[in-house]
């Protein structure tokens, strides 16, 4: 019996069970009245009925005598006395109301008519509040900088800088903590992709017209033949030997591998984000944008890259010239954003003393 039949049988059984016991065939009860009754014993019933006499059937019923003919009432011919009618009182006529004196009609005011057309006043700005607000669709805007995260256009009088900073101006009153005077800075306006003139303001085309066909489901890996697991050793000494061997191996590898906990995923991400913020591929050729380079860099303990140590380990996807351009862009990114020292935990220096960075511009080609 294959798996399909088992699943089908189980499903059908479950369905039948649900029909029988799950209340699928229960119907609503018919409506009926309920009266409260009290159950009593025969003695109680007898006691209740003792004082009551059962009416007996009467066989002899007195027949009423018919009236005698001579005793008929005599009829009189006197007319009935009409009831007295009271005369209505005559109401006194009220004096007539005073006739109001007619008022002189008020003079009709003469309207000032002018040949000049009235001047239409523009509606107050508040009237715009009556207009229902539309939900504007996100509009594509070109920006000189294309970055992973969009950045709104900074204020016109704000200096563009990598670091956002509030303006500090000297105050007249001396403060306890005197800050150096500096201008306000903000990151440069950025968009997440190149917006061409044809796409700009084309709200209707803001939505993608087509999407990438979903990839096929990955094929299930072929089951590999694995050796039968060996029977567990019952001897404790074997466990001890394996433990000692494992510890021994780690001991030998400690000569090359750094000790202690490695960088967390968050620490690695912070380093990656710091480098990518300076990785400018805008000035690379089309061929260099198809080239992936792996760059090795040695780091000083203060988090700054050792410039002379930066070298290209490998390149793929482009010519030698393209690899050179791609490497130079990668080197600039490492040096520029590392000039102030990357934010890396000093206690884990052994783990980031040597770094290999792979610069893969594949996703930047479609921006």
């Amino acid at each position, binding site marked *: 019996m294959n798996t399909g039949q088992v699943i089908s049988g189980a499903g059908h059984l479950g369905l039948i069970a649900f029909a029988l016991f799950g209340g699928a065939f229960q119907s609503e009860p018919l409506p009926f009245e309920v009266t409260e009754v009290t159950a009593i014993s025969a003695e109680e019933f007898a006691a209740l009925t003792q004082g009551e006499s059962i009416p007996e059937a009467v066989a002899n019923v007195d027949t009423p005598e018919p009236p005698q003919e001579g005793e008929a009432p005599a009829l009189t011919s006197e007319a009935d006395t009409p009831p007295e009618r009271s005369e209505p009182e005559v109401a006194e006529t009220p004096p007539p109301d005073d006739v109001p004196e007619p008022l002189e009609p008020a003079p009709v005011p003469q309207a000032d008519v002018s040949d000049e057309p009235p001047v239409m006043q523009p509606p107050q700005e508040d009237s715009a509040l009556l207009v229902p607000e539309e939900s504007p669709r996100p509009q594509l805007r*070109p920006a*000189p900088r*294309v*970055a*992973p995260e969009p950045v709104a256009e900074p204020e016109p009088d704000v200096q563009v800088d990598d670091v956002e900073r509030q303006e500090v101006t000297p105050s007249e009153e001396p403060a306890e903590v005197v800050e150096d005077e500096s201008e306000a800075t903000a990151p*440069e306006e*950025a968009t997440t992709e*190149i*917006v*061409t*003139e*044809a*796409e*700009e303001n084309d709200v209707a085309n803001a939505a993608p017209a087509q999407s990438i066909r979903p990839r096929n489901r990955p094929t299930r890996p072929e089951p590999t033949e694995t050796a039968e697991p060996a029977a*567990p050793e*019952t001897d*404790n000494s074997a*466990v001890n030997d*394996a433990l000692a061997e*494992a510890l021994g*191996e780690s001991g030998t*590898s*400690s000569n090359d*591998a*750094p*000790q202690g906990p*490695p960088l967390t995923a968050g620490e*690695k991400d912070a380093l*990656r984000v710091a*480098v*990518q913020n300076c*990785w*400018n*591929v*805008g*000035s690379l*050729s089309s061929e*260099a944008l198809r080239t992936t380079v792996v760059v090795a860099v040695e780091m000083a303990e203060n988090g700054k890259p050792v*410039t002379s140590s930066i070298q290209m380990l490998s390149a793929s996807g482009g010519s030698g*010239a393209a690899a*050179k*351009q791609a490497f*130079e862009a*990668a*080197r*600039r990114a490492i040096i*520029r954003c590392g*000039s102030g020292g990357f934010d890396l935990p000093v206690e884990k220096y052994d783990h*980031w*003393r*040597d*770094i*290999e*960075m*792979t*610069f*893969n511009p594949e*996703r*930047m080609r479609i*921006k």
Partner: protein
Amino acid sequence: MMRYVLSLLLACMLWAVPVTAQDGPLRIEITEGVIEPMPFAAPDFVSDNAAGAELGRQIADVIAADLAGTGLFREIQPEAFISKITSFSSPVQFADWKAINAQALITGAVSVDDGGKVIVRFRLFDVFAGQELGDGLQLVGTQAGWRRIAHKVADQVYSRITGEAPYFDSRVVFVSETGPKDARQKRLAIMDYDGANVKYLTESSSIVLAPRFSPNGDRVLYTSYESGFPRIYLLDVGSVQRRVLESQDGTMSFAPRFGPDGQTVVYSLTRGGNTDLYRMDLTTGANTRLTSAPSIETAPSFSPDGSQIVFESDRSGVPQIYVMPAGGGEARRISFGQGRYGTPVWSPRGDLIAFTKQSKGRFHIGVMRTDGSEERLLTASFLDEGPTWAPNGRVIMFTRETQGAQGRASLYTVDITGRNPRQVPTSTGASDPAWSPLQD
């Protein structure tokens, strides 16, 4: 039971060992970057005499304008400089240039010898790497040709940083337009790619259209109504001598373009109300008919290897783009979008075809792969048309005309990514540009 617990503990320990240890250097992958102009500094080129001092300033200005005009670079204004370049051979104070975020530094020197020769030397530095990019270079030219020297320096800088082929030392032939739309006068003119050094090649007595450079830039094909009907002319740029190339009675010929060998011309010929494509051998004057459809076939353009021709045809009802073998034969349609397609031009790299598209009341300049895939519209306006490729296939120049009776035609450039649309400065109206190859 104890045995199983010990085995479980052992398994956990063996699994945990490679996690806490790191094998080799830390590895990270960077897949997201930024696209922004690279800041550069181009101080005035130093000079040891007064004649060279003025040239040094002018050359630096042209270099900066060339690089900034690409949209890939951003000039740092001289007012922000901390260091001054006083000697071509003195060491560069990289810290001072880093402080103003100059990623590239161009230094140079100019000298004018007794014979009037201009000698220009320059160096390019990667400021943050603290080293020179490539070797220093020396260029020699005439004083009148100082702009070309500056363009050549900018070409070197552009290529060394981007890896793209250069294009600054090139020219553009175009139709200069004056007067209102209903009485417009047109002349052929030639200028540097940046609008400088304009020279007129024809008079304004007749209408001229669609000039095209030969592959080495020494000749120009164009269409003129000098005879009352459109005729193709061949003009020598150096001597400004011209001759009619095709003049069959009862026909109209137009839309010529050189083949990559410089001896073949493909063009449209209208005979009996039907327009087809023809091919002419300039050496023998022999004509070969390439198409014979009842529809209009025009705007042919060779592929860089000369094996194929892309052209415009309305055989499907509306103008679309087709590709056929250079010797004629079955054409295959490659444009299938909404709207009307026209004026296709094959990129000098061979990877893209630029075109004009009219759709929903607007005109666009766009690019697509040679099989018609990956169509991308780069511009949008009341009227954009007539794209032409820069010699390196990275930039497109085209005509943009504004609306109304007083509308004016101008030349614009745009990067093939759609970034950096920019007007080319011209003293008159300008249309129908054709970009020359890079000059020798």
